Protein backbone atom coordinates (compact mmCIF):
# COMPACT_ATOMS: atom_id res chain seq x y z
CA UNK A 1 0.00 0.00 0.00
CA UNK A 2 2.71 2.48 0.99
CA UNK A 3 4.74 1.85 -2.16
CA UNK A 4 1.84 2.51 -4.53
CA UNK A 5 0.94 5.67 -2.59
CA UNK A 6 4.44 6.94 -3.11
CA UNK A 7 4.27 6.11 -6.81
CA UNK A 8 1.02 8.00 -7.19
CA UNK A 9 2.44 11.07 -5.54
CA UNK A 10 5.57 10.85 -7.67
CA UNK A 11 3.47 10.79 -10.81
CA UNK A 12 1.43 13.75 -9.65
CA UNK A 13 4.49 15.63 -8.43
CA UNK A 14 6.35 15.09 -11.68
CA UNK A 15 3.53 16.30 -13.88
CA UNK A 16 2.84 19.19 -11.54
CA UNK A 17 6.53 20.08 -11.46
CA UNK A 18 6.70 19.90 -15.24
CA UNK A 19 3.86 22.37 -15.50
CA UNK A 20 5.34 24.66 -12.83
CA UNK A 21 8.59 24.87 -14.74
CA UNK A 22 6.71 25.80 -17.87
CA UNK A 23 4.45 28.38 -16.43
CA UNK A 24 5.40 31.73 -17.84
CA UNK A 25 3.31 34.69 -17.11
CA UNK A 26 4.50 37.07 -19.79
CA UNK A 27 3.35 35.50 -22.95
CA UNK A 28 2.91 36.61 -26.46
CA UNK A 29 0.59 33.96 -27.67
CA UNK A 30 -2.20 33.81 -30.13
CA UNK A 31 -4.66 31.01 -29.94
CA UNK A 32 -4.67 30.53 -33.71
CA UNK A 33 -0.92 29.84 -33.76
CA UNK A 34 -0.97 26.47 -32.47
CA UNK A 35 -1.83 22.93 -33.20
CA UNK A 36 0.29 22.60 -30.10
CA UNK A 37 -2.19 24.70 -28.12
CA UNK A 38 -4.00 21.82 -26.65
CA UNK A 39 -0.73 20.17 -25.71
CA UNK A 40 -0.38 23.25 -23.55
CA UNK A 41 -3.29 22.00 -21.55
CA UNK A 42 -1.11 21.73 -18.50
CA UNK A 43 0.64 25.05 -18.96
CA UNK A 44 -0.07 28.67 -19.40
CA UNK A 45 -3.19 28.91 -21.54
CA UNK A 46 -5.02 27.36 -18.68
CA UNK A 47 -4.55 29.26 -15.49
CA UNK A 48 -5.87 28.00 -12.30
CA UNK A 49 -8.02 28.27 -9.37
CA UNK A 50 -8.71 31.02 -6.85
CA UNK A 51 -8.22 31.10 -3.08
CA UNK A 52 -11.33 30.64 -0.94
CA UNK A 53 -12.90 34.00 -0.07
CA UNK A 54 -11.88 35.63 3.21
CA UNK A 55 -14.70 35.35 5.71
CA UNK A 56 -15.73 34.95 9.31
CA UNK A 57 -18.72 32.86 10.42
CA UNK A 58 -20.36 32.42 13.80
CA UNK A 59 -22.99 29.70 14.00
CA UNK A 60 -25.29 28.15 16.56
CA UNK A 61 -26.16 24.54 15.75
CA UNK A 62 -28.78 22.35 17.37
CA UNK A 63 -29.88 18.77 16.85
CA UNK A 64 -32.93 17.45 18.65
CA UNK A 65 -34.33 13.97 18.14
CA UNK A 66 -34.27 10.35 19.16
CA UNK A 67 -33.88 11.36 22.80
CA UNK A 68 -30.77 13.43 22.12
CA UNK A 69 -30.21 17.16 22.20
CA UNK A 70 -26.84 18.34 20.91
CA UNK A 71 -26.06 22.01 20.45
CA UNK A 72 -23.18 24.41 20.43
CA UNK A 73 -21.19 26.98 18.48
CA UNK A 74 -19.08 26.78 15.38
CA UNK A 75 -16.72 29.65 14.56
CA UNK A 76 -14.68 30.06 11.40
CA UNK A 77 -12.05 32.67 10.56
CA UNK A 78 -10.28 32.84 7.21
CA UNK A 79 -7.55 35.26 6.16
CA UNK A 80 -5.76 35.48 2.82
CA UNK A 81 -2.20 36.72 2.49
CA UNK A 82 -0.52 38.19 -0.59
CA UNK A 83 -3.22 36.63 -2.83
CA UNK A 84 -1.27 33.37 -2.57
CA UNK A 85 -1.92 31.93 0.87
CA UNK A 86 -5.05 31.32 2.90
CA UNK A 87 -5.32 30.35 6.54
CA UNK A 88 -8.51 29.17 8.21
CA UNK A 89 -9.26 28.22 11.80
CA UNK A 90 -12.42 26.58 13.08
CA UNK A 91 -13.64 25.97 16.61
CA UNK A 92 -16.61 23.72 17.19
CA UNK A 93 -18.39 22.36 20.28
CA UNK A 94 -21.03 19.65 20.69
CA UNK A 95 -22.81 19.77 24.05
CA UNK A 96 -24.67 16.49 24.36
CA UNK A 97 -27.61 15.49 26.54
CA UNK A 98 -28.54 11.97 25.67
CA UNK A 99 -31.34 9.67 26.62
CA UNK A 100 -31.16 7.87 23.29
CA UNK A 101 -32.67 4.47 22.61
CA UNK A 102 -29.34 2.82 23.42
CA UNK A 103 -29.27 4.55 26.78
CA UNK A 104 -32.88 3.49 27.41
CA UNK A 105 -32.22 -0.12 26.39
CA UNK A 106 -29.40 -0.35 28.87
CA UNK A 107 -31.55 1.12 31.62
CA UNK A 108 -28.91 3.76 32.26
CA UNK A 109 -29.85 7.32 33.02
CA UNK A 110 -29.48 10.30 30.74
CA UNK A 111 -25.90 11.46 30.34
CA UNK A 112 -24.31 14.71 29.36
CA UNK A 113 -20.96 15.34 27.78
CA UNK A 114 -19.08 17.81 25.67
CA UNK A 115 -16.92 17.41 22.57
CA UNK A 116 -14.60 20.17 21.45
CA UNK A 117 -13.00 20.30 18.03
CA UNK A 118 -10.41 22.67 16.54
CA UNK A 119 -9.07 22.79 13.00
CA UNK A 120 -6.41 24.69 11.16
CA UNK A 121 -6.00 24.76 7.37
CA UNK A 122 -3.33 26.26 5.13
CA UNK A 123 -3.99 26.74 1.44
CA UNK A 124 -1.41 27.67 -1.17
CA UNK A 125 -2.25 28.89 -4.65
CA UNK A 126 0.25 28.57 -7.50
CA UNK A 127 -1.02 29.26 -11.01
CA UNK A 128 -3.12 26.22 -11.81
CA UNK A 129 -2.90 24.41 -8.52
CA UNK A 130 -4.28 24.67 -5.04
CA UNK A 131 -2.75 22.75 -2.17
CA UNK A 132 -4.40 22.53 1.22
CA UNK A 133 -2.99 20.98 4.37
CA UNK A 134 -5.00 20.80 7.52
CA UNK A 135 -5.12 19.42 11.02
CA UNK A 136 -8.10 18.71 13.25
CA UNK A 137 -8.21 17.63 16.86
CA UNK A 138 -11.39 16.53 18.61
CA UNK A 139 -11.62 15.82 22.33
CA UNK A 140 -14.28 14.45 24.62
CA UNK A 141 -13.83 12.76 27.96
CA UNK A 142 -13.45 9.27 26.47
CA UNK A 143 -12.42 9.86 22.86
CA UNK A 144 -9.65 11.85 21.27
CA UNK A 145 -9.31 12.04 17.49
CA UNK A 146 -6.49 13.72 15.59
CA UNK A 147 -6.49 14.00 11.80
CA UNK A 148 -4.08 15.33 9.25
CA UNK A 149 -5.18 16.01 5.69
CA UNK A 150 -3.67 17.11 2.40
CA UNK A 151 -5.70 18.02 -0.67
CA UNK A 152 -4.56 19.07 -4.08
CA UNK A 153 -6.54 20.42 -7.01
CA UNK A 154 -5.60 21.34 -10.55
CA UNK A 155 -7.60 23.08 -13.26
CA UNK A 156 -7.11 22.07 -16.88
CA UNK A 157 -8.77 22.02 -20.27
CA UNK A 158 -9.51 25.74 -20.30
CA UNK A 159 -10.56 25.55 -16.65
CA UNK A 160 -13.49 23.40 -17.72
CA UNK A 161 -12.15 20.58 -15.58
CA UNK A 162 -10.75 20.43 -12.08
CA UNK A 163 -9.02 17.32 -10.82
CA UNK A 164 -8.66 16.93 -7.10
CA UNK A 165 -6.94 14.39 -4.92
CA UNK A 166 -6.61 14.08 -1.20
CA UNK A 167 -5.33 11.98 1.64
CA UNK A 168 -6.15 12.06 5.33
CA UNK A 169 -4.75 10.14 8.25
CA UNK A 170 -6.51 9.94 11.59
CA UNK A 171 -5.28 8.59 14.89
CA UNK A 172 -7.80 8.07 17.65
CA UNK A 173 -7.37 7.23 21.33
CA UNK A 174 -10.37 5.59 22.94
CA UNK A 175 -10.84 5.33 26.67
CA UNK A 176 -13.76 4.53 28.92
CA UNK A 177 -15.14 6.59 31.74
CA UNK A 178 -15.08 4.65 35.03
CA UNK A 179 -12.53 2.20 33.62
CA UNK A 180 -8.96 3.45 33.77
CA UNK A 181 -7.50 0.20 32.43
CA UNK A 182 -9.29 0.57 29.10
CA UNK A 183 -7.22 2.17 26.32
CA UNK A 184 -7.57 1.44 22.61
CA UNK A 185 -6.43 2.96 19.35
CA UNK A 186 -7.85 3.44 15.88
CA UNK A 187 -6.07 4.46 12.71
CA UNK A 188 -8.09 5.86 9.81
CA UNK A 189 -6.84 6.53 6.27
CA UNK A 190 -8.78 8.24 3.52
CA UNK A 191 -7.87 8.39 -0.17
CA UNK A 192 -10.01 10.57 -2.37
CA UNK A 193 -10.12 11.69 -5.95
CA UNK A 194 -12.60 13.88 -7.76
CA UNK A 195 -13.31 15.53 -11.06
CA UNK A 196 -15.41 18.65 -11.54
CA UNK A 197 -16.48 19.29 -15.12
CA UNK A 198 -18.25 22.18 -16.78
CA UNK A 199 -20.66 20.68 -19.29
CA UNK A 200 -22.61 23.68 -20.64
CA UNK A 201 -23.04 27.36 -19.74
CA UNK A 202 -25.67 26.21 -17.25
CA UNK A 203 -24.56 22.75 -16.14
CA UNK A 204 -21.74 21.44 -14.01
CA UNK A 205 -21.00 17.91 -12.86
CA UNK A 206 -18.82 16.57 -10.08
CA UNK A 207 -17.74 12.97 -9.51
CA UNK A 208 -16.01 11.92 -6.31
CA UNK A 209 -14.57 8.68 -5.05
CA UNK A 210 -13.29 8.04 -1.56
CA UNK A 211 -11.71 4.93 -0.09
CA UNK A 212 -11.49 4.70 3.68
CA UNK A 213 -9.47 2.14 5.59
CA UNK A 214 -9.92 1.80 9.34
CA UNK A 215 -7.72 -0.32 11.55
CA UNK A 216 -8.08 -0.72 15.27
CA UNK A 217 -10.86 -0.46 17.81
CA UNK A 218 -14.05 0.13 15.87
CA UNK A 219 -16.77 -0.63 18.38
CA UNK A 220 -18.34 1.20 21.28
CA UNK A 221 -17.20 0.07 24.76
CA UNK A 222 -20.57 1.04 26.26
CA UNK A 223 -22.74 -0.89 23.82
CA UNK A 224 -23.66 -4.55 24.09
CA UNK A 225 -25.62 -7.14 22.12
CA UNK A 226 -28.87 -8.79 23.17
CA UNK A 227 -29.03 -12.56 23.29
CA UNK A 228 -32.53 -14.00 23.43
CA UNK A 229 -32.27 -17.09 25.62
CA UNK A 230 -35.98 -17.83 25.13
CA UNK A 231 -37.41 -16.07 28.12
CA UNK A 232 -35.21 -13.02 28.58
CA UNK A 233 -32.34 -11.08 27.11
CA UNK A 234 -28.78 -11.74 28.17
CA UNK A 235 -26.24 -9.03 27.61
CA UNK A 236 -22.85 -9.61 26.04
CA UNK A 237 -20.04 -7.40 24.82
CA UNK A 238 -19.98 -6.56 21.11
CA UNK A 239 -17.24 -8.11 18.98
CA UNK A 240 -16.37 -6.10 15.88
CA UNK A 241 -13.76 -6.79 13.23
CA UNK A 242 -10.69 -4.61 13.70
CA UNK A 243 -10.58 -3.50 10.08
CA UNK A 244 -13.11 -1.80 7.87
CA UNK A 245 -12.55 -0.91 4.21
CA UNK A 246 -15.14 1.23 2.49
CA UNK A 247 -15.69 2.72 -0.94
CA UNK A 248 -17.95 5.66 -1.62
CA UNK A 249 -18.75 7.33 -4.90
CA UNK A 250 -20.95 10.34 -5.57
CA UNK A 251 -22.22 12.26 -8.56
CA UNK A 252 -23.35 15.87 -8.26
CA UNK A 253 -25.08 17.90 -10.93
CA UNK A 254 -25.80 21.63 -10.73
CA UNK A 255 -28.07 23.25 -13.28
CA UNK A 256 -28.79 26.98 -13.57
CA UNK A 257 -32.41 27.59 -14.46
CA UNK A 258 -33.58 30.37 -16.82
CA UNK A 259 -34.29 32.55 -13.75
CA UNK A 260 -31.87 33.34 -10.89
CA UNK A 261 -32.08 29.86 -9.40
CA UNK A 262 -30.37 26.50 -9.60
CA UNK A 263 -31.35 22.91 -9.02
CA UNK A 264 -28.63 20.69 -7.62
CA UNK A 265 -28.67 16.94 -7.16
CA UNK A 266 -26.41 14.48 -5.45
CA UNK A 267 -26.41 10.71 -5.86
CA UNK A 268 -24.33 8.66 -3.46
CA UNK A 269 -23.40 5.02 -3.36
CA UNK A 270 -21.47 3.27 -0.59
CA UNK A 271 -20.21 -0.23 0.07
CA UNK A 272 -17.90 -1.66 2.69
CA UNK A 273 -16.16 -4.80 3.90
CA UNK A 274 -18.76 -5.26 6.63
CA UNK A 275 -21.39 -6.03 3.99
CA UNK A 276 -23.14 -2.68 4.20
CA UNK A 277 -24.45 -1.11 1.00
CA UNK A 278 -26.20 2.24 0.91
CA UNK A 279 -27.64 4.72 -1.57
CA UNK A 280 -28.67 8.33 -1.22
CA UNK A 281 -30.41 10.89 -3.39
CA UNK A 282 -30.61 14.57 -2.62
CA UNK A 283 -32.24 17.37 -4.60
CA UNK A 284 -31.64 21.02 -3.71
CA UNK A 285 -33.22 24.16 -5.06
CA UNK A 286 -31.72 27.61 -4.44
CA UNK A 287 -33.17 30.88 -5.64
CA UNK A 288 -32.16 34.52 -5.37
CA UNK A 289 -35.38 36.38 -4.63
CA UNK A 290 -33.73 39.78 -5.03
CA UNK A 291 -30.26 41.25 -4.50
CA UNK A 292 -30.39 40.51 -0.79
CA UNK A 293 -32.43 37.38 -0.20
CA UNK A 294 -31.67 33.77 -1.17
CA UNK A 295 -33.78 30.75 -0.25
CA UNK A 296 -33.03 27.03 -0.27
CA UNK A 297 -35.26 23.96 -0.36
CA UNK A 298 -34.04 20.39 -0.23
CA UNK A 299 -35.16 16.80 0.08
CA UNK A 300 -33.04 13.76 0.72
CA UNK A 301 -33.59 10.03 0.82
CA UNK A 302 -31.05 7.63 2.32
CA UNK A 303 -31.22 3.87 2.70
CA UNK A 304 -28.81 1.20 3.77
CA UNK A 305 -28.58 -2.55 4.27
CA UNK A 306 -27.21 -4.06 7.46
CA UNK A 307 -23.71 -5.21 8.31
CA UNK A 308 -23.06 -8.97 8.09
CA UNK A 309 -22.54 -9.31 11.81
CA UNK A 310 -25.44 -7.11 12.89
CA UNK A 311 -28.59 -8.32 14.60
CA UNK A 312 -31.13 -6.61 16.79
CA UNK A 313 -31.09 -9.73 18.99
CA UNK A 314 -29.09 -12.92 18.62
CA UNK A 315 -30.17 -16.35 19.75
CA UNK A 316 -27.89 -18.50 21.85
CA UNK A 317 -26.30 -20.13 18.77
CA UNK A 318 -25.84 -17.08 16.53
CA UNK A 319 -24.35 -15.19 19.46
CA UNK A 320 -21.34 -17.47 19.10
CA UNK A 321 -20.38 -16.16 15.61
CA UNK A 322 -17.05 -14.42 15.32
CA UNK A 323 -18.38 -10.89 15.08
CA UNK A 324 -21.56 -9.54 16.66
CA UNK A 325 -22.95 -6.04 16.95
CA UNK A 326 -26.15 -4.18 17.73
CA UNK A 327 -25.41 -0.60 16.66
CA UNK A 328 -28.50 0.70 14.85
CA UNK A 329 -26.11 2.56 12.59
CA UNK A 330 -25.26 -0.88 11.16
CA UNK A 331 -28.87 -1.96 10.73
CA UNK A 332 -31.12 -1.90 7.69
CA UNK A 333 -32.99 1.40 7.64
CA UNK A 334 -34.06 4.36 5.57
CA UNK A 335 -34.27 8.05 6.34
CA UNK A 336 -36.04 10.88 4.63
CA UNK A 337 -35.39 14.56 5.23
CA UNK A 338 -36.67 17.92 4.05
CA UNK A 339 -34.92 21.19 4.59
CA UNK A 340 -35.41 24.91 4.14
CA UNK A 341 -33.04 27.83 4.43
CA UNK A 342 -32.84 31.55 3.95
CA UNK A 343 -29.98 33.99 3.65
CA UNK A 344 -30.26 37.77 3.85
CA UNK A 345 -27.24 39.84 2.90
CA UNK A 346 -25.98 43.41 2.94
CA UNK A 347 -23.12 44.74 0.81
CA UNK A 348 -20.76 47.52 1.81
CA UNK A 349 -18.00 49.44 0.10
CA UNK A 350 -15.65 49.53 3.07
CA UNK A 351 -13.26 47.20 4.86
CA UNK A 352 -16.17 44.73 5.05
CA UNK A 353 -17.55 43.68 1.65
CA UNK A 354 -20.62 41.76 2.66
CA UNK A 355 -22.51 40.48 5.71
CA UNK A 356 -25.36 37.97 5.96
CA UNK A 357 -27.71 36.37 8.46
CA UNK A 358 -28.75 32.83 7.71
CA UNK A 359 -31.00 30.03 8.87
CA UNK A 360 -31.02 26.42 7.70
CA UNK A 361 -33.40 23.82 9.13
CA UNK A 362 -33.66 20.13 8.28
CA UNK A 363 -36.32 17.74 9.49
CA UNK A 364 -35.42 14.04 9.38
CA UNK A 365 -37.38 10.82 9.81
CA UNK A 366 -35.55 7.56 10.50
CA UNK A 367 -37.33 4.19 9.99
CA UNK A 368 -35.49 1.08 11.05
CA UNK A 369 -36.29 -2.22 9.33
CA UNK A 370 -34.43 -4.53 11.69
CA UNK A 371 -33.67 -2.55 14.83
CA UNK A 372 -36.31 -2.77 17.54
CA UNK A 373 -37.20 -0.44 20.33
CA UNK A 374 -36.20 -2.66 23.22
CA UNK A 375 -36.87 -1.35 26.72
CA UNK A 376 -38.16 -3.09 29.82
CA UNK A 377 -41.60 -1.61 29.05
CA UNK A 378 -41.81 -2.72 25.43
CA UNK A 379 -40.52 -6.21 26.19
CA UNK A 380 -43.14 -6.52 28.91
CA UNK A 381 -46.00 -5.19 26.70
CA UNK A 382 -45.20 -6.93 23.43
CA UNK A 383 -43.30 -9.96 24.57
CA UNK A 384 -39.68 -10.79 24.04
CA UNK A 385 -38.73 -10.69 20.37
CA UNK A 386 -41.90 -8.79 19.38
CA UNK A 387 -40.94 -5.27 20.32
CA UNK A 388 -41.90 -2.74 17.66
CA UNK A 389 -39.43 -1.53 15.05
CA UNK A 390 -37.73 1.67 16.08
CA UNK A 391 -38.28 4.99 14.34
CA UNK A 392 -37.69 8.58 15.34
CA UNK A 393 -37.80 12.14 14.04
CA UNK A 394 -35.21 14.83 14.49
CA UNK A 395 -34.44 18.35 13.40
CA UNK A 396 -31.08 19.98 12.76
CA UNK A 397 -30.95 23.77 12.99
CA UNK A 398 -28.23 26.15 11.93
CA UNK A 399 -28.36 29.87 12.72
CA UNK A 400 -25.37 31.84 11.57
CA UNK A 401 -23.93 35.22 10.79
CA UNK A 402 -21.24 35.68 8.12
CA UNK A 403 -18.87 38.49 7.19
CA UNK A 404 -16.76 38.84 4.05
CA UNK A 405 -13.84 41.27 4.06
Amino acid sequence: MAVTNRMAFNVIASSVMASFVLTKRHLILRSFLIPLTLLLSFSTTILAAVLPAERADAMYHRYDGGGMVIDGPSILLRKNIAEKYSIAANYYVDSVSSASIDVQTSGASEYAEERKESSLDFTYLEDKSLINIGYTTSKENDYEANSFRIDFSQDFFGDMSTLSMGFSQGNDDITQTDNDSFAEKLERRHYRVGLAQILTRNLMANINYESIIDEGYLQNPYRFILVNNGSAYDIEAERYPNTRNSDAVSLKLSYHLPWPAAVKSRFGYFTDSWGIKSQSIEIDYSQKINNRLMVDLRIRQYQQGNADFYANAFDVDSALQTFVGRDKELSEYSSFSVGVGASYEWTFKQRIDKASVNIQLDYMVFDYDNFNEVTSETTASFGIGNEPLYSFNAYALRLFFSLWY
Partner: protein
Amino acid sequence: MKKIITVLFILQLLALSACSVKPWVKPYHRAKLANEVMQYDRDPVSDGYIHHVRQARESARGAEGAGGGGCGCN
Protein backbone atom coordinates in the same frame (compact mmCIF):
# COMPACT_ATOMS: atom_id res chain seq x y z
CA MET B 1 -4.59 2.76 -5.28
CA LYS B 2 -3.75 1.27 -8.68
CA LYS B 3 -7.21 2.46 -9.71
CA ILE B 4 -6.31 6.04 -8.84
CA ILE B 5 -3.04 5.98 -10.78
CA THR B 6 -4.82 4.61 -13.82
CA VAL B 7 -7.51 7.28 -13.59
CA LEU B 8 -4.89 10.02 -13.38
CA PHE B 9 -2.94 8.62 -16.29
CA ILE B 10 -6.09 8.48 -18.42
CA LEU B 11 -6.87 12.08 -17.54
CA GLN B 12 -3.37 13.14 -18.54
CA LEU B 13 -3.79 11.31 -21.84
CA LEU B 14 -7.18 12.90 -22.36
CA ALA B 15 -5.60 16.29 -21.91
CA LEU B 16 -2.97 15.39 -24.47
CA SER B 17 -5.43 13.91 -26.93
CA ALA B 18 -7.78 16.86 -26.51
CA CYS B 19 -6.03 18.32 -29.56
CA SER B 20 -9.21 17.94 -31.52
CA VAL B 21 -11.54 19.22 -28.81
CA LYS B 22 -11.38 22.81 -27.56
CA PRO B 23 -13.01 24.04 -24.33
CA TRP B 24 -16.55 24.56 -25.53
CA VAL B 25 -17.75 26.96 -22.86
CA LYS B 26 -15.81 30.18 -23.29
CA PRO B 27 -14.47 31.76 -20.08
CA TYR B 28 -16.67 34.83 -20.61
CA HIS B 29 -19.78 32.64 -20.78
CA ARG B 30 -19.35 31.25 -17.27
CA ALA B 31 -21.33 33.88 -15.38
CA LYS B 32 -24.12 31.48 -14.41
CA LEU B 33 -21.69 28.79 -13.33
CA ALA B 34 -20.03 31.29 -11.00
CA ASN B 35 -23.33 32.23 -9.37
CA GLU B 36 -23.61 31.27 -5.71
CA VAL B 37 -26.96 29.55 -6.23
CA MET B 38 -24.99 26.91 -8.16
CA GLN B 39 -22.60 26.13 -5.33
CA TYR B 40 -23.18 23.03 -3.35
CA ASP B 41 -21.24 24.02 -0.26
CA ARG B 42 -21.36 27.80 -0.19
CA ASP B 43 -21.27 28.13 3.62
CA PRO B 44 -18.54 25.84 4.96
CA VAL B 45 -19.55 25.89 8.65
CA SER B 46 -23.18 25.15 7.86
CA ASP B 47 -22.49 22.48 5.26
CA GLY B 48 -19.74 20.88 7.33
CA TYR B 49 -22.21 20.62 10.19
CA ILE B 50 -24.97 18.88 8.23
CA HIS B 51 -22.39 16.42 6.81
CA HIS B 52 -21.35 15.71 10.39
CA VAL B 53 -24.97 15.16 11.49
CA ARG B 54 -25.49 12.63 8.70
CA GLN B 55 -22.19 10.84 9.12
CA ALA B 56 -22.84 10.35 12.84
CA ARG B 57 -26.04 8.44 12.09
CA GLU B 58 -25.36 6.74 8.77
CA SER B 59 -22.95 4.00 7.88
CA ALA B 60 -22.04 5.75 4.66
CA ARG B 61 -19.06 8.02 4.77
CA GLY B 62 -16.88 9.73 2.22
CA ALA B 63 -17.18 11.26 -1.25
CA GLU B 64 -18.78 14.40 0.12
CA GLY B 65 -16.79 16.10 -2.57
CA ALA B 66 -14.27 18.87 -2.71
CA GLY B 67 -14.95 21.91 -4.86
CA GLY B 68 -14.34 22.55 -8.50
CA GLY B 69 -16.24 24.47 -11.09
CA GLY B 70 -16.69 28.01 -9.99
CA CYS B 71 -16.06 30.93 -12.25
CA GLY B 72 -13.36 29.28 -14.31
CA CYS B 73 -11.35 32.45 -13.92
CA ASN B 74 -7.61 32.60 -13.73
